[in-house]
């Protein structure tokens, strides 16, 4: 059952030169967008190590958004292409690990596109609300409960036996 009060958590990596500036613009223009996003400023979308993305999901993010300069506009000439290449394979890999397309997004947003920051974030929040929580830490902690079921039960049944067949 979808929880009506569920608010998705999005970790966003925005490049200093375009998307972060656009997010600033959205702010000074008083555009309203969903508060579900935690923005991390990085110098270039090419700096986004895939480990950051996995770490975000593994720490409980419901979605990860990366914002970079439009193709051809990268401050460092090709950082955004490097991100795009990683994104294409990472998306495929994440989807085979059960993290669907709508949870991982790459957008080109230039410094003047404050409006686009708003629409992208609002749209992503809407889609994540339909999908519901990913909650990887919770899933893992549920599965790790089996480690606490100390195998006493098993040991108990075998106590009194002289020999284990497998050892």
């Amino acid at each position, binding site marked *: 059952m979808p929880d009506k009060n569920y608010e998705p958590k999005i970790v966003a990596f925005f490049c200093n030169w375009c998307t972060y500036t656009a997010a600033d613009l959205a702010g000074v223009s008083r555009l309203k967008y969903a508060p579900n996003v935690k923005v991390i400023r990085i110098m270039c979308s090419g700096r986004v*190590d895939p480990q950051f993305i996995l770490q975000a999901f593994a720490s409980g993010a419901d979605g990860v958004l990366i914002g970079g300069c439009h193709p051809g506009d990268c401050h460092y000439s090709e950082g955004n292409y490097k991100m795009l*290449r990683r994104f294409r394979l990472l998306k495929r890999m994440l989807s085979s690990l059960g993290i669907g397309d709508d949870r991982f997004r790459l957008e080109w947003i230039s410094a003047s596109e404050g409006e686009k920051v708003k629409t992208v974030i609002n749209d992503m929040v809407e889609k994540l609300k339909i999908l519901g929580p990913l909650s990887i830490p919770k899933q*893992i902690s549920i*599965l790790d409960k089996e480690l606490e*079921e100390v195998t006493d039960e*098993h*040991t108990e049944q075998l106590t009194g036996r002289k020999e284990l067949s497998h050892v």
Partner: protein
Amino acid sequence: MSDKPKLAFYWCASCGGCEESVVDLAEDILMVAGAVDIIFWPVAMDFKKSDVEAMEDGSIFASMINGAIRTSEQEEMARLIRRKSKVVIAYGSCAHMGGIPSLANEFTRSQIMEYMYQEAPSVVNPEKTRPMLNFKHNSENVTLPEIRNLVRALDQVIDVDYYLPGCPPTPKLLKQAVLTLLSGEFPPKGTVLSPDEALCEECPRKESKPSDLSFKHFYRPHEVLLDKTKCLLSQGVVCMGPATRAGCEALCISGNMPCSGCFGPTSRVRDQGAKMLSSLCSNISENDEAGIDKVLGGIPDPVGTFYRYGLASSLLRKKITEDV
């Protein structure tokens, strides 16, 4: 019993290759056997679990446990050995990072059971028989260990002091590890007992690795005739060398096969697969989606390629199921 340091070997979810690698010490095994007492080694010697239980806690000098942890019985044995040992070494890729068995984390336990006992083409099971944890047979209670939901690396179940990486670890590394421990000069806890640098650093083909790889196509080793002298990445083959720890002396590459990553990452990397994906993709020559996807078509199974030995210890650990 003599007062030589006591050494134990144990195996969990593994193939037996790690045991083989101990025997591969060849003559050096006499050196090891001379310096220590092997007090528990189920694959080679007749000791029982009860013999271990009877030992004083902490009385085993060092235990080498290989294999991933998949069942309740393996958990139990790992905990028992931990209690009895001063030093526990995760021996081989499976104990170190989950190994190949942890690729099973791409499936749920029920999917695996369903396939193995029902759907596999070679299975005939009209009564839908499944393994049971308890079964009464002639008024005797017969038990089986439980298959757990996740395959785990050893340090996800017990405290581990050192790691000997590799599938399997090389005899040279094992010998070095034993000598290091016997010398009494213990490295810091958590050390992986292999050089902390990328495999490329000790690769005989290092000189032929171009600074700009610029991938136009990825080939799998059987799809192309490989030049025995040139860097495999420069030939478009996914070689995990850049994201893998050194120490094997480029064994697979000497056999003209790419590194598949069994030594795991260096200490600076948390997630080997993510790092390898990052490095490979950055170097693709194309800039547009269609072109990039065409090149990436040469990597049909990214999880199996980048996490072949370490899905359990990767950041995500398993395939995420949204309905747990």
